[in-house]
């Protein structure tokens, strides 16, 4: 069996990112779209941790922590927007979210 190299982690992260991208594109429930975005952020974090391991430099992990902080902020604001929208329109389907469309 081949030894595990950083490329394995990169391939895993790419696959996870692709899954998240499919979720963003395909699902119509906005909460699940946000969850798919979290999957993609996780894929990026795996990349950062893999490079940090490869280069023996902890800076990658520091950036991964920043990404976690941004993801938390994104989840809080995004879910707040969803709640406000649901209170007005009684739906979470992104096809119904076209008030601002020109």
């Amino acid at each position, binding site marked *: 069996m081949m030894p595990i190299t950083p490329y394995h982690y990169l391939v*895993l992260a790419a696959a996870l990112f692709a899954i998240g991208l499919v979720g963003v594109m395909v699902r119509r429930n906005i909460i699940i779209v946000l*969850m798919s975005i*979290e*999957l993609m952020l996780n894929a990026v974090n795996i990349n950062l*941790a893999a490079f*940090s391991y490869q280069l023996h430099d902890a800076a990658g992990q*520091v950036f991964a922590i920043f990404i976690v902080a941004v993801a*938390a902020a994104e989840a*809080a604001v995004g879910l707040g927007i969803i709640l406000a929208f649901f209170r007005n329109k009684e739906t979470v389907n992104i096809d119904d979210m076209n008030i601002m469309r020109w």
Partner: protein
Amino acid sequence: MLEAIVFYTLATFILGFGVMVVTTKNPVHCVLFLVANFLCVAMIYVLLAAEFLAVIQILVYAGGIVVLYLFVVMLVNLRRPPDAQIDTRRQARVGFVLAALLLAEISAILMYSAVHPSSVATIAPQVASGGNTETVGMLLYTDYLVPFEVASMLLLVAMVGAIVLARREA
């Protein structure tokens, strides 16, 4: 060899749970698969010698963000039909089986470490030396102090924004 086995197992679980998150119909199940996915990613971080990141992943993602999602899913999912057809006795049986499996696993680990005390002793010095957490903390508070403060400001703004957005109009 061992690393390869662990990696491929975790990769299978991560991708499998990821696909389940994207394909499952019930949003509550989606959130639960997301938790499982995040926990497996945390184990990948341990494999990559990023223990502090793994702890952050469990505390912030699996503990905080996912609970937020679960709250919103349950607030928003009002029109779901009541689950009259769920067999609670079957659920209870599954629960007992899972609890028994967990107990058996913990007992097996305890007995193994009682029989082979060396396997426990070899890991301890690594953890005691501070290691990963100390390195990341030093970087975070020296080289990356300004981004760290910016991130804290971002979190503050996000917190205020979320409260304002979710507040009922007074």
